[in-house]
């Protein structure tokens, strides 16, 4: 076991971890932030996407032990984030989820698209979403939700 200290959703935590424990399993099993979902566990499906030091990364192929001193934000950590609040509303209004399994990762990626690419069109949004798989919606609602937040920000 190795000791690791990191900030998760604004709170400093120090815990012992097995080196092989992924960041995803760490936040789910040891910190009980179960909003982070595990799908493929090899970096393809995007369900486990969280922010590490402010950037979206895969928590299933990142070891908790290697995140010592990092700032981690899971889906539970966006309560005070205005952009994420807009995105949640847009997902709701555009039927951008059905079963919800992909949604935590989708929201983290969607927020990053708006933050990084304010001029993205539908084609670009779809390309940027290629690392997050949804098996329910066919992506139409998700793309529409992201485009609506982009348009709202442009108009503001």
């Amino acid at each position, binding site marked *: 076991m*190795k000791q690791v200290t990191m900030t998760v959703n604004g709170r400093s935590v120090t815990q012992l971890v*097995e*080196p*092989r424990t*992924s960041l995803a*399993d760490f936040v789910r099993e040891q910190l009980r932030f179960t909003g982070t979902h595990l799908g*493929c*566990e*090899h*970096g393809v499906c*995007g369900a486990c*996407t969280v922010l*590490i030091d402010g*950037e*979206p*990364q*895969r928590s*299933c*192929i*990142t*070891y908790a*032990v*290697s995140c*010592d001193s990092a700032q981690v934000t899971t889906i539970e950590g966006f309560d005070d984030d205005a952009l994420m609040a807009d995105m949640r509303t847009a997902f709701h209004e555009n039927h951008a989820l059905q079963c919800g399994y992909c949604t935590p990762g989708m929201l983290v*990626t969607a927020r*990053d698209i708006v933050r990084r690419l304010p001029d993205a069109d539908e084609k670009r949004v779809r*390309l*940027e979403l*290629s*690392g*997050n798989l949804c098996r329910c919606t066919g992506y139409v609602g998700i793309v529409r939700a992201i485009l609506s937040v982009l348009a709202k920000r442009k108009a503001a």
Partner: protein
Amino acid sequence: MKPAKFDYERATDVAHAIGLLKGSGGFTKILAGGQSLGPMMNLRLAQPDLLVDIGRIEALKRIEKTHDSLFIGALVRHAMIEDGKAPDTTRGYLRSIAGNIAYRAVRNRGTVGGSVVHADPSGDWPTAMLAAGASARITSANGARSVGLDAFFTGAYSTVVGEDEVLEGLSVPAFSDHARWGYYKICRKPGEFADSIGAVVIDPARSYARVVLGATDGAPILLPALASRVAAGQAVSIADAGAAIDAVHSGFDPFDRQIHATALSRAITKALAA
């Protein structure tokens, strides 16, 4: 889908990393971004006894421009190049390639050095860096050495980097103002492993032309005969590219041969139109 047990040590500098590599009895892997190693360990294709994490070594994160080259430290992440945080010395070549590797979440953690030294045939950087004429700086307890990428890859997932050596970074020659390049990757879905990669760099001011075929069953393949043709400004059809492939590699089945010929021909067309 969970990795087998392993030990973990974090290296504070390159000398410490080399010491940890030398001191380990079993199968040891260096961990940089872990975006290839992580999946392989989760799938238990790789079961190292020890991971030496070099991710915190600041010296490996440097980007340095000299008068005729750009040095990219091994730990520079793909997204940094995608976002233009490295000086553009290659007329947008490196930036374009970086932005089309896997997915943004992977590009935020994966490293250029890790990709090159992992030497996955389907990886972008091995093929792209070979076409750009890059060389690798490798450090061991006995000092540093520089190896051109044309002598670096020894096969799929295999390089000249020894078990107690660390890749420090890559030196990429600066392109002249009239350099042209083309890069064509055939994937079934954006971000997936490539079925084929064609990479072309032509720089008449430096008398330089390279055509490289990647995502094969082994190391990326240089095609000097095609490079001469492209340097002379001659178009290369899919049939021409297929014939050039036959001259250097006889093992492709008709499907792979066609995919590879198509990627090469399209990359060359893009370079000539640039």
